[in-house]
């Protein structure tokens, strides 16, 4: 244990904390998908990690399409136009996958009033199917004889290997806090995540659609009697979760730049943890949980060594749940006041 590594030097402390906030912001955006679906359906959508993973590929594909496969290093400003296209593409792709999930993995089960556990298994199955589909994309393209034409996108024979964005986004340092320089990429990730979370929170609190979500979360039958179209609400919930996962995927690719067919798994577990930490079903809880988890991981890595980061994060989760079984802010999508 080395507390000095974390607290001995204020610049290092800031550096560990900022690094944690950046990843925490990405966790939080993914956590929204888990939390919204849980809030409305009391169901954990384990396939949400794959919704995110498809988004990361969409980002890389857009860069290959608009730039080519030649390796390049750009500043954030230069990459911005393509990045915005990639953001739209990733949000659309992720939202489409989320809607497909809702249509084929959940709606048939919900219609038949299947127990929640059945839907959970359906989600796990869908998660594997989606991840493997991405890992076998070269074969699917091969069926149509397109694997040569699409080689840059499906990487024949290497579809399960890492797939990288050819354009590396080089962060520029904007300003210093003490001895720590804040880069534009980190700032954009944190600010973008915060803005999206606030916007979503306001949508749920203030709009007619948001009222529908809250009503369905509170009492689906009563909501239906009051004229809320519950299928639409569920669809909308998946759609929003998918859009947020697509945004998270874009921010992730800005920072990391590489993805793989199983890239969603660990991030999905972390995001789910963040959702539970903050109080699953609670939007503000997802933000708090995500940021807290990201920071705790980095602090844990600083004090105990990087191999202990997950241990520290999960011990913290257990401790929080012992004291507050429903998470830091409680489960309250339905109870949010209008």
């Amino acid at each position, binding site marked *: 244990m080395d507390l000095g*590594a974390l607290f001995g*030097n204020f610049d*290092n402390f800031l*550096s*560990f904390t*900022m*690094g*944690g906030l*950046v*990843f925490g912001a990405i966790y939080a955006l993914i956590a929204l998908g888990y939390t919204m679906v849980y809030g409305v359906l009391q169901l954990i959508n384990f396939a949400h990690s794959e919704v995110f993973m498809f988004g990361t590929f969409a980002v890389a594909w857009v860069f290959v399409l608009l730039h080519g496969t030649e*390796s*390049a*290093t750009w500043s954030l400003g230069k990459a911005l136009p393509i990045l915005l296209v990639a953001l739209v593409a990733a949000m659309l792709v992720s939202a489409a996958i989320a809607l497909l999930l809702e249509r084929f993995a959940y709606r048939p089960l919900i219609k038949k009033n299947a127990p929640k556990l059945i839907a959970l298994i359906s989600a796990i199955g869908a998660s594997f199917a989606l991840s493997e589909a991405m*890992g076998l994309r070269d074969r699917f393209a091969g069926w149509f004889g397109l694997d040569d034409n699409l080689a840059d996108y499906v990487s024949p*024979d*290497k579809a*399960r*290997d*890492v797939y*990288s964005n*050819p354009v*590396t986004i*080089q*962060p520029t340092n904007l300003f210093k806090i003490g001895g720590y*320089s804040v*880069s534009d990429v980190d700032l954009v990730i944190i600010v973008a995540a915060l803005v999206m979370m606030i916007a979503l929170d306001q949508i749920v609190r203030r709009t007619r659609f948001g009222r529908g979500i809250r009503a369905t979360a509170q009492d689906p039958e009563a909501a239906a009697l009051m004229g809320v179209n519950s299928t639409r609400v569920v669809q909308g919930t998946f759609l929003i979760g998918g859009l947020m996962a697509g945004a998270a995927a874009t921010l992730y690719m800005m920072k*990391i*730049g*590489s993805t793989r067919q*199983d*890239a969603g798994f*660990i991030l999905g577990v972390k995001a789910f943890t963040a959702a539970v930490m903050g109080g699953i079903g609670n939007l503000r809880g997802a933000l708090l949980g995500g940021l807290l988890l990201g920071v705790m*991981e*980095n602090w844990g*890595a*600083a004090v105990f*060594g*990087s*191999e202990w*980061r*997950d241990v520290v994060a999960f011990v913290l989760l257990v401790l929080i749940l012992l004291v507050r079984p429903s998470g830091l802010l409680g489960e309250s999508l339905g109870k949010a006041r209008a």
Partner: protein
Amino acid sequence: MIRSTKSLRSFAAIASIAALTLSACGSSDDDNKTDGGTTGAAAALCGKNIAFLGALTGDAGALGQNMVNGIKLALKENDAKNPDCKIGLKPFDSQGSPDVAPGLATQIINDDTIVGLVGPGFSGESLATGKTFYDAGLPSISPSATNVTITQQGWTTWHRVIGNDDAQGKADAKYLTETVGAKKVFVVDDGQDYSKGLAGTVKTALGDALVDSDQIAVKQTDMSAVVTKVKASGADAIFYGGYYTEAGLLAKALRQGGFTGTFMSGDGSEDAQFVKIAGAQAAEGAVLSAPAGPAPSGFEATGLYATQAYDATNIFLAAINGGAADGKAINDFIGSYVGDGVSGPVAFDDKGDIKETKIYAYFVKGGKLDVENPSPIE
């Protein structure tokens, strides 16, 4: 505990059954030969297969693909030279995982048509499967598993045509302190058998030049904590023990975090994917060592370990074409083999390690991993 002992026992039982089956097959082949008498001097194991066990997909799948390319090239040449004695390839994809490999090892020893194994690809899976193959008497030659402890287990069927991590680690430390002139080296590994072994040797060999160390997890993508530690330590060079995915992400995060020292890693990172993941700018100047020289010009199979896999396959082919009729005969042949492969002179000591080994430093130059012009370290 009880459970694992039990499964180990049943595993051993399966292994011994397989060993019996294998030896039974060997003798039945002999019978055919003497009974028929028409096959003449032809080798006894024609039409059989060589297995490959290693990562074809996953974190380090590119490396296994390189090896299979080397094996296929050797087999293709054999088919052309000896059209009457074709040998096939059965690849088994372990994803490089010590958890997946044992199940595949059982499949391999239970397959009567497999007479030898090129592999296992990595150290972790080698340690996990070595006893199974040894009990079954299946001779194996690994093109790439470099952990020191594998050949200390007494598995006499296990060989490798590549220098171990001890030699590489010492050479890497020497390169960093003498050629680069680094005064403070920070060492990171990913906790796997190969990585810990290599990083451990480097740490020991660095002595006072080691400033601090850290361990990351496989599939970790957020390197910000490591970067902060490296910068806080004032290191002027970093050594990473592990594979190209995390190596690329680490190199990228370090450069973006303002680290300007030398980035060095071992043979697990020596792949073009490293440059793609790190990005050309962050990868520039990185030094990647490997106990393997460049392939001779005009050699068809490219990529790290392709030449070793090609050489390993050719040793099996020489044994089969020389008339070896069972696993034991092949194993004896390998033990006494002396020859010149495309990767260098090949001969084994009594533990199964290659006798002569040379460590090379490869460089990332102009946005590409230069695989043709490495410089020998020793």
